[in-house]
């Protein structure tokens, strides 16, 4: 066994520091979601589940939540449904098109491919505030031209727009790994163009597609800046709703509860995905041996 050097201890300190600074707000959200009072000096006392319950009931009396909060919680529920609606739709659409675009980009020659990748990566590197402002401008133009009102539709388009580049980036490396003759073989055997893509290419790049979809989902469910720019005045997702609540000066505790539920579900899904993938890898290794 090697002796631990100063360097090793220093590195442990760095890791601990990184985790503390990243996780401190999450731990606070955890505590807040179970605390019944709003006063900061009493934080951690008065354990309660009522903020969780308030998300799943419309009968607030039993929870003794003051009437002025109830309108808040109701509008939060609408924002939550909006978020799910936008996130699920944009994930499906951007995964589908992102995969097709990636297949298209992959079959281009090197020069064109690089040009496409520059275009593809631009929205990723662009700060959200600029992407949001650019999308707002095109939607304002469309409003004057064809009367398109800002609302759920513009938010959906915006989410698809910023999700597709991530899908493309996740799928492309997988495409580089598959045999370039697969597609041609499928065409030779009588597949149509789309048939060959769906029967020959897609099955061999599923891991890339899944990770692309995960990216799209993660980006969409948590998006704040771009949604705020393009959503108009009536449509809220959870992030813009929290922001407007903050600007009004009151943040209901139910939103902490909602956030923790999402966080826990995500942890489980990510863990499971990880578990499945390592299992798969092990199986492949066993087969290869």
């Amino acid at each position, binding site marked *: 066994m090697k002796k631990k050097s100063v360097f090793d201890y220093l*590195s442990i300190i*760095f*890791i601990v*520091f*990184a985790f503390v600074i*990243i996780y*401190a*707000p*999450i731990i*606070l*959200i955890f505590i*807040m979601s179970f605390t019944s009072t709003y006063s900061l000096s009493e*934080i951690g006392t008065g354990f309660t589940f009522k903020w969780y319950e308030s998300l799943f009931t419309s009968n607030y009396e039993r929870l003794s939540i003051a009437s002025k909060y109830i309108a808040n919680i109701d509008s939060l529920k609408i924002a939550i449904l909006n978020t799910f609606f936008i996130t699920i739709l944009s994930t499906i659409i951007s995964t589908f*098109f992102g995969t097709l*675009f990636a*297949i*298209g*980009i992959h079959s*281009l020659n090197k020069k064109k491919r690089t040009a*496409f*990748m520059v*275009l593809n990566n*631009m*929205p*990723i*590197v*662009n*700060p*959200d*505030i*600029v992407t949001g*402002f*650019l*999308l*707002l*401008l*095109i939607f304002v*133009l469309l409003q004057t031209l064809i009367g398109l009102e800002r609302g759920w539709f513009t938010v959906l*388009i915006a989410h698809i727009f910023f999700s*597709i580049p991530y899908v493309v*980036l996740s799928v492309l*490396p997988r495409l580089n790994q598959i045999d370039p003759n697969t597609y*041609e073989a499928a*065409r*030779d055997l009588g597949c149509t163009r789309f048939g060959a893509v769906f029967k020959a*290419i897609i099955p061999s790049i599923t891991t890339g597609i899944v990770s692309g979809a995960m*990216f799209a989902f*993660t980006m969409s469910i*948590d998006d*704040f*800046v771009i949604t705020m*720019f393009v959503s108009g005045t009536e449509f809220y997702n959870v*992030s813009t709703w*929290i922001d407007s609540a903050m600007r009004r000066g009151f*943040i209901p505790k139910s939103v902490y509860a909602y*956030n923790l539920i999402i966080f826990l579900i*995500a*942890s489980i899904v*990510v863990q499971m995905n990880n578990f499945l993938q*390592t299992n798969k890898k092990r199986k492949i290794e066993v087969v290869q041996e």
Partner: protein
Amino acid sequence: MNDISQVITQDTKRIKKLKKTKSFAIPYLVWMGIFLVVPMLILIFLAFTTYDFSQNSEVHFTLSNWAYVFNSRYAVTVFWPSVFRSFYVSFIVTLICLVIGYPVAYLMSKLKAKYRALIMIFLSLPLWCNQVLRIISWRTIFEILGLNYNEFYIFNIIVAMVSMYLPFMILPIYTVLEKLDKRVIEASYDLGCSKIQSFFKVTLPLSLGGIVSGVIMTFLPSLTSFEVSDAVSYNTVLLLGNLIHARFHGTGGYNIGSVFSIITIVFTVVGFILVLKVDKEGETLI
């Protein structure tokens, strides 16, 4: 002979026909044209005119928007101080993230695959926690710790930003370090490098791509963030992002907002070129 060459040309024609998946890329070009190129043109148009969409006013080309931003009372009292503050804050945030992030990424890459996956999960999970709520939680933490926002605003903003953007520094560096061929480092030992020499002569230069991506992915968001300073300082501290955000509500604000956006895009393009130099396929961006 003739027959064979005919067969070959037929064959190449057939193969060319088969490679038709190229056409899948064309709609993407159209899509990007509508939502990326056209808005850029509108942006430039608005920055050099006083045109207002809501009033459909007449188009007058002018430099007054630029003069207002760079050379007016507003520039002296608001714009330049905000820009300097923004650069100061994001420079420090990036520096802290790099100083903490590089060692963490480096150590992660040395761990066993099982632990690496675990730490990866722990780094990506915070993305699932709503960012606005995380920022608000920092405000609460500062209140509990007694870090008053009047006195400690810069410190508070920096801490909250480091917390938000640290994973974006660690992940690209880690991606590069993980792929680094271990034999190269062994070779450097064989050639007589000490551990420290090997790190500075081999590992560090080879991980430059990740560092550049990480720096850009930390620096640009912290330069343009508005929600952190809004929440943590109760709308009292203005950064570059706040200026853009404010323009988007006011009347006729789109013209000035466009000027701000063009300034931001210039910084972005510089960053983007740097990333392209070290990473052509954008592997370190995700």
